[in-house]
């Protein structure tokens, strides 16, 4: 039986989004883990659980041939805590290098970002994408907010930003500043035709046009990673 194509993501919300995205791209890729975010948080935050528990298991499954291609998508949204892009990247490259992956000279796309690591022993390739664009600090929410291009959605986003500023002025902003992108996206999605639509369903509904540079780069990375090992 050929190995599976697996995309490792940080939590339940991200999993739902990527399932919609992969469905639209017509990729047969399983998104893991299914772990509810609250369960992840009993051990640590989602991203550390992904690195300390899901990744070691995935590496063993690669060596046994159960996984034929692995993608990892993580956020780098905690610059204030020292978890920006560079530190996140280093954290993930270390276990890959220990497993023998060629992390010194990864394959990079000429027309986009993201990295793909090969193994000299012909083990499955592993791709790494750090949100939002594999360059800057941020999260999935930043990638989606950057992808807003229609006048109507941009107007809604401007209104959301104005309201969030107003909340701060009235000392009613209960979330931490590092979660501003999540709040902006949640507010925008709460004002859609179906209030509170999920990011995944909003993507399927075309609220985030796939022609934007940010999403196109991400799509290209996914395509390059997973089509390289398609039967």
């Amino acid at each position, binding site marked *: 039986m050929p190995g599976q194509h697996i995309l490792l993501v940080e939590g339940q919300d991200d999993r739902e989004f990527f399932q919609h995205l992969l469905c639209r791209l017509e990729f047969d890729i399983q998104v*893991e*883990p*299914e*772990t*509810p975010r609250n*369960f992840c948080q009993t*051990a640590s935050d989602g991203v550390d*659980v992904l690195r300390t*528990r*899901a990744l*070691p*298991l*995935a590496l*063993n*499954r690669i*060596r*046994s*041939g*159960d996984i034929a291609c692995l993608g990892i998508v993580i956020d780098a949204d905690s610059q204030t805590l020292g978890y920006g892009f560079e530190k996140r990247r280093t954290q993930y490259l270390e276990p890959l290098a220990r497993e023998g992956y060629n992390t010194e000279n990864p394959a990079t796309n000429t027309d986009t970002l993201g990295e793909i690591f090969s*193994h000299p*022993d*012909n*083990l499955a390739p592993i791709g790494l994408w750090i949100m939002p664009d594999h360059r800057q600090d941020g999260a999935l929410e930043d990638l989606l907010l950057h992808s807003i291009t229609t006048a109507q959605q941009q107007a809604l986003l401007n209104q959301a930003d104005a309201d969030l500023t107003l909340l701060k002025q009235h000392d009613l902003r209960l979330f931490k500043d590092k979660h501003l992108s999540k709040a902006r996206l949640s507010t925008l999605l709460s004002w859609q035709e179906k209030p509170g639509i999920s990011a995944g369903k909003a993507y399927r509904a075309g609220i985030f046009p796939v022609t934007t540079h940010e999403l196109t780069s991400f799509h290209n990375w996914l395509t390059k990673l997973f089509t390289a090992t398609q039967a």
Partner: protein
Amino acid sequence: MLDSLYIRNFRCFEDLQVESLGRVNLVVGKNNTGKSTLLESVLLLASAGANQVIHEILNKRGDLLLDKQTPNLFFNGDIPISHSNRLEISDSESKNSLIITLINQNNNENRLPMALPKTGIIPKFTLNPKLSILAFRDGQYDINPIPNQSCTTQLLNENDLAKIWDQVFLNIDDSILKEALGLIEPSIMNIAFIPSPQNNASRMAVVKLQNISKAVPIRSLGDGMIRLLQIFLHATQAVNGFLLLDEFENGLHYSIQQKVWDKLFKVAEELNIQVFATTHSMDTIRSFCRVAKADKDIEGKLITLARSVGTSDQGKIFASVYNENDLEWIINSGMEIR
């Protein structure tokens, strides 16, 4: 109790390192990845390479029938040509290290790991007229076995169980057995083996149930009762040693498995037994995980065996070990562990 396991040049294992072990260990993996062979390695270690055990291991898979000259005891069926190719099973402590090597009866000098007495050497197993097997543990070749019990995938017949019962019933507190059988039938008060009405030469197991005047054949209560009797009778014979359980789930409905693990964890601790079990069942893994996680004092570990697809070590079996916290997360994550 073994703290880890290193197996070298034994049947399908070229060079296997299991980095840590718990009191109760569950071994999983696809077919032909060495689950039963891992149990056999512990059996071989515990028995100090006993002739009977080597015979049983080879006979079970028909190896002795196929080739009596070079039976498949060593990796790839090769005969080790020097001490460096010896069969070795050990943990991190030298007292548990078993080395099996060959002795050429005409000239044994260059095959042995140490000097031996000139006389009194009795080979454990004879491969052919010239080559015999010698086993050493902790540098000694004349060694006592560690208690060990193998619980096979097949349900034993009651006559065989009666023979085990005869060996243990005067020496053990039979409450362990009654409590174990009570997991399925709580009204069990007592158990006995009586001559079979059909054949006086064989015996059958019967139980006394509350509020029923006559004894009831245990077989009438289902295969699960036979399996429980088999598991826990063997456990009572493995005090201070090893209990090896091939395909734990055989005969046990998934709804009862958590209770059986719970009882087995407690019995293992009480009788100082280290348990090695195998399974293909996700229900068994889940129930094992719940018990291992809940029982903070008794360590449970899950060992996965798989064959590498890497080009440099293609087909080589490797082991990964997961503790209770890893396992709980993996099960909740929906990621495949078998």
